[in-house]
């Protein structure tokens, strides 16, 4: 009954997907190696920078450059500790996206593409992102 189909060797493109193909989803970030962490944080930070951080930033820019009153209101708003905390979080997102992006630009021109340098540069990105955030947080607190 399967004479026609079994006479031909199954090619990867025409073979139907196995219904019980195993899937390995490990969504625990702690199990990711540093390059994987840099990658997923780069993606998540990019999405968050697009929304809601960018419209928020534009709104703040509008308030700051608008009038004396809007500037004063903005200034008062930023004295609130929770707002400062949120701003520091956003700064980390930007800093990480910045340093991870520079790492990807270097990888694109084949700088540090071997396993060990790529791992070291990923750790460097995570450390630099954190350091830059701490430095700016210390300035604005």
């Amino acid at each position, binding site marked *: 009954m399967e004479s026609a189909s079994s006479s031909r060797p199954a090619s990867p493109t025409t073979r139907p997907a196995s219904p019980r193909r195993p899937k390995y989803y490990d969504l625990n970030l702690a199990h990711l190696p540093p390059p994987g962490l840099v990658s997923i944080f780069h*993606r998540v930070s*990019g999405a968050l920078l*697009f929304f809601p951080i960018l419209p928020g930033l*534009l709104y703040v820019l509008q308030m*700051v*450059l608008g*009038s004396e009153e809007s*500037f004063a209101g903005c200034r008062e708003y930023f004295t609130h500790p929770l707002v400062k905390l949120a701003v520091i979080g956003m700064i980390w997102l930007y800093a990480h996206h*910045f340093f991870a992006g520079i790492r990807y*630009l270097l990888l694109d021109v084949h700088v540090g593409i071997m396993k060990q340098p790529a791992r070291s540069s990923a750790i460097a990105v995570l450390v630099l992102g954190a350091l830059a955030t701490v430095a700016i947080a210390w300035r604005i607190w």
Partner: protein
Amino acid sequence: MKRYIKTPVGAHYGLGDWLLQRLTAVVMAVYTVGFLACLAMHAPSTHADWKAVFSGTFARVATMLFFVALLYHAWVGMRDILMDYIRATGLRLALQMAVGLALLLYLIWSASILWSR
């Protein structure tokens, strides 16, 4: 000269998008460093200080260039994310349109902030 000819498939904008995403990244990285240096040098604190930072033509054009680069960079990035996770074509196209529209509005908004005074 022997040339590599591949089967003509796809819309061929992939490589251009990939390259422009990198170019726009460089533009924004340079602006970021320059902006931070400017903040460190002038340390603006009052309303007048902040207005002065963005009053020069160079600062306005550079900031506008940053936002144009950001428009394209975020478009490629968000489209990649949507193509990876949203498999229903209709929903994906709707979300891509929303992203594109939002980015255009951001661009117009930033121009109006920089030049409305």
